[in-house]
């Protein structure tokens, strides 16, 4: 897990090591290579332009991911994809007794199926799973990157994973039938 704070250096020193990961994240958000490239390019330009506002010694990764996310949400693709589920974040997670257990899912589900389920998730669920599981961000970093309280990070993540399990269960069921 990356150090959540203490980033110092030039823009290139801090940003370029994140280039491939940002592109991958952009692909997941946009589901389109050209749009992902545009998103990454715009993110880098915005970040470079606003780099003077970045406080050296704070978390650069969370800062630039937030720029990418906000850029995506204000893009045409982002506006189409984003369905605000913030209202659900405050509600307690539903009981998990009806979910398909991961142990059952994992035994039968291949990587492509997980990718397919991720793509089908609402964008705010997809992004929080990616930030946590793929980027290995701490809840604190996710809170900074998305701009929501840590409690909301936890509840949204719980819902996102539940939705993921439900999608995978449905895919598994269709495969069996």
């Amino acid at each position: 897990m990356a150090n959540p704070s203490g980033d110092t250096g030039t823009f290139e020193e801090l940003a370029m090591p994140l280039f491939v990961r940002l592109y991958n994240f952009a692909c997941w958000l946009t589901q389109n290579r050209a749009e992902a490239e545009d998103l990454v390019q715009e993110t880098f330009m915005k970040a470079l332009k606003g780099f003077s506002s970045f406080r050296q010694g704070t978390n650069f990764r969370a800062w630039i991911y937030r720029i990418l996310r906000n850029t995506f949400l204000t893009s045409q693709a982002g506006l189409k994809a984003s369905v605000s589920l913030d209202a659900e974040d405050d509600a307690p997670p539903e009981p998990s007794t009806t979910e398909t257990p991961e142990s059952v899912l994992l035994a039968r589900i291949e990587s492509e199926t997980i990718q397919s389920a991720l793509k089908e998730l609402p964008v705010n669920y997809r992004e929080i799973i990616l930030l946590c599981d793929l980027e290995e961000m701490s809840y604190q970093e996710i809170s900074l990157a998305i701009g929501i309280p840590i409690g909301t990070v936890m509840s949204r993540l719980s819902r996102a994973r539940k939705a993921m399990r439900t999608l995978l269960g449905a895919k598994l069921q269709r495969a069996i039938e």
Partner: protein
Amino acid sequence: MSCDFNRDKLDAYMDESLPREALAVFEDHLHSCPTCAAEALARLQMKRATRAAAANLAQSPEFSMRPEFRLRIEKSIQKSRHSVLKNRWLPWMAVASVALLLVAVSVPMFMRHAERGEAIAELLDLHVATMASANPVDVVSTDRHTVKPWFQGKLPFTFNLPELQDSPYKLLGGKLVYFKHNPGAQLLFELRKHQLSVFIVQDQQGVMPLGAAVTASSDKGFSVETWTHAGLRYVVISDTSPTDVHSLGDLLRFAAK
């Protein structure tokens, strides 16, 4: 699942985000609860499977990054950074430009001031030398019709001398001087016990960088007044008051018309 332990902590546990105290309690529970331990393991495996599946998207043929893309970004950053740097330096460049402009303006002004001071100083020296000389003038006469003709053939210009009959000033005479290698006239006047020198030289560019208008100044206690008329530079120098110097100047200017 028969365990009623708070499963909400499972996510925080596998995300390594449980507080230290809660982590110790939860791990104790996992040691004693096979159901929760299995669930925690399964979720951890799902997390890893999700990471593996998600990480491969950019390598898939559909999303694989084009080689030129990274190059394009790097070029854009360089180009934009130059622009940012240019903008960042713009205020400083503006300040530098103003400073250069000030230097460009002030240096010639300073030079002109220096040249002017140098010219006045040279004439002051001539005046002081005249005062100290046993023979202050070459043509000794109170008659302007004697003094003026004396300069004929000695100067490439001519001038008029004022009628002093009804004035407190008295013409003592004149002599030929060289100012910056150019011939000029030095006329000596008297007012009470004070003596006044009037220098008349050609107003050539660079010889004396002074304005055309009547300009009074003070230098080392001497009163100085200068002006130009009809291509000639007049400079009056005396240890008397500026008013007295100016009054003689008025007489000379009137005579020159």
